């Protein structure tokens, strides 16, 4: 299965110790997770993690566990979403924050991976942006077509 991963990075004019406080503590997360009314983060490997993110009219409940907690470099949590329409993702994805400091500035990389583990039905959020009367069956056909395209591209 081809890994499906989203990678984003940004450079921040602050030392890694400062950035870490925002990224990897519950108190810090509350400040930059706007649209989030509920944050739980137990700051240790195995600790509980939960966010309630609001994209009106929906609320996404994100839950998982801390996988890596290595100050001030690597913080990763498992990430499983749930919303009213789709129910809870049957599998977890993984979000990893990596901080690297140079001359007082910190480059932070977010990798959100493991999407390939989710069944197609849970990826149907893609429909929302362009949908007009799509059915799940049609999405399945679209998947067949897309995979066919991948196979043809590989040939």
């Amino acid at each position: 299965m081809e890994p499906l991963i989203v990678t984003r990075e940004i450079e921040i004019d602050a030392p890694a110790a400062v950035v870490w406080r925002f990224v990897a503590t519950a108190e810090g997360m509350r400040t930059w997770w706007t649209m989030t009314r509920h944050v739980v983060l137990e700051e240790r490997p195995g600790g509980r993690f939960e966010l309630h993110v609001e994209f009106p009219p929906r609320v996404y409940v994100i839950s998982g566990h801390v996988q890596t907690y290595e100050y001030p470099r690597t913080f990763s949590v498992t990430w499983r979403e749930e919303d009213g329409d789709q129910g809870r993702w049957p599998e977890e994805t993984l979000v990893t924050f990596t901080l690297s400091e140079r001359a007082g500035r910190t480059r932070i990389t977010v990798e959100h991976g493991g999407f390939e583990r989710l069944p197609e039905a849970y990826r149907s959020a893609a429909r929302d942006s362009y949908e007009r009367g799509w059915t799940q069956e049609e999405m399945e056909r679209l998947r067949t077509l897309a995979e066919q395209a991948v196979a043809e591209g590989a040939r």
Partner: protein
Amino acid sequence: MARHSPYRAISDPTRRRILDLLRERGPQRAGDIALRFPRISRPAVSKHLRVLRQARLVREIAEGRERWYRLNPEPLREVYDSWLRQYETFWTERLQTLKQLVEADERTRRREERSDGASDRHPRDRD
């Protein structure tokens, strides 16, 4: 002319059925396709094929006097991948918010440090 978006092309149920037909039965002539949609006029079918062609979802192949239409599924990958793109946007926005907050906080901290340092070194300069 700008290439037409595959999103728009597949937003129409008839065009989705044309794509299904080409996937299931392989290349078809315009006439064959029109026969499958008896309730739709020939010109309307031609128009749908044109939209699909402009979105690169079908290719037209001329063979003698006949034109065959063949499915080209490649642009559908783009549509399908849009799911991941939502997360790209999501994380881009989150990181930008993080940057703004951390840097504002850091500026305040540095300013305070500087003024504390100045007063430590030059107590008599204070008003």
